[in-house]
């Protein structure tokens, strides 16, 4: 992720490229002002008044994930690990997104909670709520800082701006449009960004493929290159972790990536779930992550494939530092292949993607800060206007702290490792607590708290042991997988154990929050509930999973 500060990588933008860039940011700010006129209540600001159609929230859902790490990181992985990177998109995303839509969304949306921590408060107790609200808020501003830093690095490397100028300019733009327009503005811009990003990545992929002689030419070159045949298969060399570039076996891929990490990320990450909560009705909310799964299936075509193209066309790619790091695969290809015009589109798309990531973090942060920390524990019972105002100030605060954490992030050698650590610390135990709490009504409030806390501490302990060399792993990737696994198992064991020593909540308080108690529409009745198949979450979800399986066949 780190581009060297003294990078010689430069894209020569001409006047038209800048025009394209300026038009984009003009539009983004215009949407903010237009959205502002429509905002009447704090729910409008935080949840877009729960009025958005499913295709809008669905594209926003996938776009909120299409941030810095996604585009540069996955192209880098494509260059480094070949087609094994596809696992991050297919097994590592689609099943979890479908599960979120079909099984979990009825609880989130139907229980009328405004945030993931609020769900925990109702299912468990206040200590669980406070712990999760604070750890979520901290994680969001840390990740916002990483996105801001990555945005600034791109501005610096591509346009020649100073790093600190880039950080401040990026922060100012994100702040303006979220403060003014709230979540509607963030979501609308995410939808817009989605198309601009694709319009930038598609020409890169087309020209790249022409250069290497199409897909066949590309695969032939990969086969003869240092990556070799193993990089062209997704499953067939995963019998042993030594036989493939990713260094993982199929059990690790299936359970580590496909289950703990993926379900932890997609189903409990409020920055994502929030997109679905702003949908206009239960069905639209359930379809949100499922609609998002379809573009997710195809996005590797414009990230992993360019990564492979970079691997075979750019000599020396894969250097430890400087311009030729894997993380620079996409910018290097842009420099190499794109003429002015589409270059402007691609730069705009890239900048837009970093802002999408940061905006998602900040809008997740301000909602949780306002509803779950300020309203719940600091100033209760004020007017709606008051909380709307606090929400705007929280956004300002979040961005300012994000600027600070961006400078912290700039001190790290590898941002990807930093991010994966955050996921294994926060998301893996949270997922375990959720999944047990949703399906086992006896799980007690204190079991929720202790499983979350001890799961987090277990992962933290492993990380500290790794940092101090008390335990060694082959790679940071392997460490984060183990961290997530240990956190998950610890949280599940603690949840079960503590339940036997503490009192449960009565069924009546759990209605709508726990599977099988009724009180909300749960997964069982929906199959017959929808008249047309393309609006049925179960049918759509099944199609998405089947497509993921089919896509695996040619690259088995």
């Amino acid at each position, binding site marked *: 992720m780190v581009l060297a500060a003294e990078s010689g990588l430069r894209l020569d933008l001409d006047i038209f490229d800048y025009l*394209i860039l300026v038009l*984009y940011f003009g539009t983004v700010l215009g949407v903010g002002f237009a959205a502002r006129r429509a905002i009447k209540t704090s729910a*409008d600001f935080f949840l877009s008044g729960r009025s958005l159609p499913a295709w809008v929230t669905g594209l926003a859902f996938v776009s909120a994930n299409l941030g810095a790490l996604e585009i540069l990181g996955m192209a880098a992985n494509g260059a480094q690990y070949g087609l094994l990177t596809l696992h991050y998109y297919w097994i590592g995303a689609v099943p979890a997104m479908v599960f979120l839509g079909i099984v979990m969304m009825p609880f989130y949306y139907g229980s009328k909670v405004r945030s993931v921590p609020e769900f925990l408060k109702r299912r468990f107790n206040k200590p669980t709520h406070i712990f999760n609200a604070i750890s979520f808020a901290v994680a969001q501003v840390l990740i916002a800082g990483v996105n801001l830093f990555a945005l600034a690095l791109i501005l610096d490397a591509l346009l020649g701006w100073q790093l600190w100028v880039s950080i401040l300019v990026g922060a100012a733009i994100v702040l303006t449009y979220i403060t003014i327009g709230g979540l509607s503005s963030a979501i609308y811009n995410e939808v817009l960004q989605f198309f601009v990003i694709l319009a930038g990545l598609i020409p890169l992929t087309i020209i790249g493929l022409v250069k290497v002689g199409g897909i066949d030419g590309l695969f032939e070159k990969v086969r003869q290159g240092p990556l070799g045949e193993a990089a062209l298969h997704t499953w067939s060399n995963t019998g042993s972790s030594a036989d493939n570039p990713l260094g993982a076996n199929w059990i690790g891929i299936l359970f580590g990536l496909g289950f703990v990490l993926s379900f932890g990320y997609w189903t409990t990450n409020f920055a994502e779930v929030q997109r679905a909560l702003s949908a206009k*009705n239960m069905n639209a909310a359930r379809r949100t992550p499922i609609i998002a799964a379809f573009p997710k299936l195809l996005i590797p075509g414009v990230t992993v494939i360019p990564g492979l193209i970079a691997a075979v066309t750019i000599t020396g790619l894969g250097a430890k530092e400087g311009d030729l790091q894997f993380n620079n695969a996409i910018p290097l290809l842009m420099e190499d*292949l794109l*003429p002015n015009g589409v270059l402007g*589109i691609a730069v705009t798309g890239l900048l837009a993607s970093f802002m999408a990531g940061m905006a998602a973090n900040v809008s997740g942060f301000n909602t949780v800060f306002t509803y779950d920390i300020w309203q719940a524990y600091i100033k209760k019972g004020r007017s709606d206007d008051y909380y709307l105002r606090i929400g705007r100030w929280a956004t300002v605060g979040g961005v300012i702290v994000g600027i600070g954490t961006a400078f912290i992030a700039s001190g790290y050698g590898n941002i990807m490792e930093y991010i994966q650590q955050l996921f294994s610390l926060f998301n893996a135990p949270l997922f375990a607590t959720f999944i047990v709490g949703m399906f086992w009504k006896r799980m007690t409030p204190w079991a929720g708290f202790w499983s979350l806390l001890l799961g987090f501490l277990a992962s933290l302990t492993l990380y500290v042991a790794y940092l101090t060399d008390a335990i060694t792993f082959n790679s940071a990737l392997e460490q984060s997988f183990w961290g997530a696994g240990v956190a998950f198992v610890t949280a599940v064991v603690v949840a079960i154990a503590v339940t036997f020593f503490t009192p449960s909540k009565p069924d009546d308080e759990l209605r709508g929050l726990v599977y099988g108690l009724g009180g909300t529409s749960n997964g069982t009745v929906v199959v017959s509930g929808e008249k047309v198949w393309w609006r049925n979450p179960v049918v759509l979800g099944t199609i998405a999973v089947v497509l993921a399986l089919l896509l695996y066949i040619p690259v088995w």
Partner: protein
Amino acid sequence: MAENDQVDEKKLSAAARLFDVRRVIGGLFVVYGVIVTLIGLFDSQAEIDKAEGVRINLWMGIGMLVLGLLFLLWLRLNPPEPPDPSDIDEDRPPSH
């Protein structure tokens, strides 16, 4: 109660106005399409060579123009209306 209904109605129409994300996408892509197509028409040989002989500006420009027009057409054929109350099921939570 009557006042509540009024507020609700106002909010729905505001939401409906905002729903015009199609207009934003359509408008931006039409403008981008025109700019990039024009650049594509006047591309020098050096630029075409850089793109491996593909007239990428021309093609992407036309593609973006068409996408933009499609969004505007969609908006034209299916203009935003206040959401149909029957479209909103009982599970819809109160807005605050």
